[in-house]
């Protein structure tokens, strides 16, 4: 839109003469003769082509951030494959509005055609499934978040990986005491034992752990699994019960001959990002790989 038209400024005298004419087109043409009219028509035509090329080219810039062909963001529960997801998302943000922990955000123009599409930054606020009913999926008008999904354990947003095992407190044999992400962290998490219905700020729930197992103990799938094993499924609904465990601490023999505990991610992992959010080291030792998912 810009360059070609801005270059029109190069000949302002002629243009202003054209513009200064009074409105009625027919009269003007008779007075000015067919030559001038043709010239203006030709210019208008060229200008229109320039605008078409300009605006279309700009719109195609939206391709660039997608060129790598894989997910660039953690998407909400139920999100279709990246291409289908971006095709079907109508960019309305209804999922943003229903999320009780405000985990969902809308992307900006630097994400190209992802502009306005929903994503999560797990480290800032993970999906803790505290809505239980997958509200974002229900809110989605286009099925970009597939309506085939009913319960949290069926979700496949990504898969957790132990990205920096060396900084993992469990592997170092260390415990954790205090506020998980410090006093300034605003992330929310639901603690069933404190308030079944309302998530609370993570900073309001300090820990004192002999061995850090935060990624395991806060995992929404693990919590459900344990509740079901104890015969108390969430809301009394056995459909909420995960078929598989998601994460566990397993003993490993380290090089110095001491046995330590290491987080191992299992096939029940849905990629919700709570482990990434709750990992107390900076940067997080465990993160979500949103281009990998466990088998459903």
């Amino acid at each position, binding site marked *: *839109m*810009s360059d070609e*038209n*801005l270059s*029109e*400024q190069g000949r*302002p005298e002629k*243009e*202003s003469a054209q*513009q200064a004419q009074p*409105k*009625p087109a027919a009269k003007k043409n008779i007075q000015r003769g067919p030559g001038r009219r043709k010239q203006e028509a030709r210019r*208008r*035509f060229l*200008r*229109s082509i320039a*605008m*078409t090329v300009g*605006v*279309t080219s*700009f*719109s*195609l810039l*939206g*391709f660039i951030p*997608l060129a790598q062909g894989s997910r660039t963001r953690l998407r909400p529960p139920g999100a279709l494959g990246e*291409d*289908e997801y*971006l*095709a*079907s*998302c*109508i*960019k*309305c*943000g*209804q999922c*943003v*509005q*229903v999320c009780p922990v405000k985990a969902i*955000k*809308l992307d*900006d*123009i*630097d994400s*190209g*055609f992802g*502009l*306005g599409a929903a994503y999560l930054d797990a480290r800032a606020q993970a999906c803790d499934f505290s809505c239980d009913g997958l509200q974002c999926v229900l*809110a*989605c*008008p*286009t*099925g970009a978040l597939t*309506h085939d999904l009913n319960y949290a354990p069926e979700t496949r947003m990504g898969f957790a990986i132990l990205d920096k095992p060396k900084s993992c407190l469990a592997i170092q044999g260390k415990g954790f005491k205090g506020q998980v992400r410090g006093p300034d962290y605003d992330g929310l998490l639901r603690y069933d034992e404190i308030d079944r219905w309302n998530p609370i700020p993570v900073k309001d729930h300090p820990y004192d752990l002999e061995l850090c197992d935060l990624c395991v103990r806060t995992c929404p799938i693990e919590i459900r699994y344990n509740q079901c094993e104890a015969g108390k499924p969430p809301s009394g609904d056995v459909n909420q019960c995960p078929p598989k465990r998601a994460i566990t601490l397993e003993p490993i023999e380290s090089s110095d001959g001491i046995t330590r505990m290491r987080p191992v991610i299992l096939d029940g992992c849905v990629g919700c990002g709570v482990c990434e959010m709750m990992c107390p080291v900076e940067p997080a030792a465990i993160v979500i790989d949103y281009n990998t998912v466990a088998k459903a």
Partner: protein
Amino acid sequence: MNILKESFLQLLGADPHKPSKEEIKPAAQKVYFYKKDEKVTKADLVALHEEHHKNSKNKWTKRRWITLILVNFLFVFSYALDIQVLEGALTASRFVGFHMADLNSALQVMLAFKQVLINLLIGIVTIFILWFLLGGRTFCSWVCPYHLLAEWAEKLHLFLAAKGWAKDYKFDRRVRTVFYIIFALLAVFTGYTVYEFISPTGILSRALIYGPTLALAWVAFLLLFEVFLSRRAWCRYVCPIGITYGLVGVISPLRVSYNMMDCKHEGDCRNVCLVPHVLDVTIKNRSTEVRMPIGADCTRCGLCIDACPTSSLSYEFKGLTHHPENKTEEKHDSV
């Protein structure tokens, strides 16, 4: 020429049809005949305008701006105060739980995704019926947030142009149809809703509701382009949303109606209009009938109704609005 066909062709960018003498109905010819020797001075027009609008200065502009701001802020408050009245954004939403989908956004999604979910379909039908009843491009001038900013930019543009600091480079109106086809094809073949990436309507609506984004720079660029280089360029020459709702408007019963009887043909209406080609029927010897509906490209904004010194333009709802034959007693505020 068939009025519907003419309305449709103008929407796609065709120049208004100039009727031959034979096409003008005898009743209209008679009115033009009696107007032949009529001389109108500027003072006459001002006096007429005063008389016709003495109690209602810019009545429709005021109503429209209030409506536009209220609708957009209903989205904002619904989320900010968590009252769940109008959830979502202009692209798709739920009004007290009932699905609504912007027709153009829904079209882009359907073309890119090639599937339609029942919720989206419900939203499309709801919005289609709503804008069919309200006039189609009524969406543009009464709801679209970019329209309001562009209107203010237009005022600035006119001010600057009068001083010679801004130009109005015109484009071929058919280019909007070209854009419509380009964005439809891009959606089909790339599988992305390409237009949504540059839609100032969507960008603004989301920015209002969810907070400012970098994408607003694009909107600012468009506004600057309109202020300095081309009056109302986006709405006039690019925006596919206008065509989508215009297509609904072709068959809509709610429209602006032109009565040539008292018209002085001075063109005040065309000077304020976003889409002045639709008002070419107000030029002498262009109207084929005494009363003519204004075409689908009209956004039903009411600027012309407020500007007309003779109340020759008014809203009408086809089949419901009664037009008394006696022109002197005609009331024009009926909707």
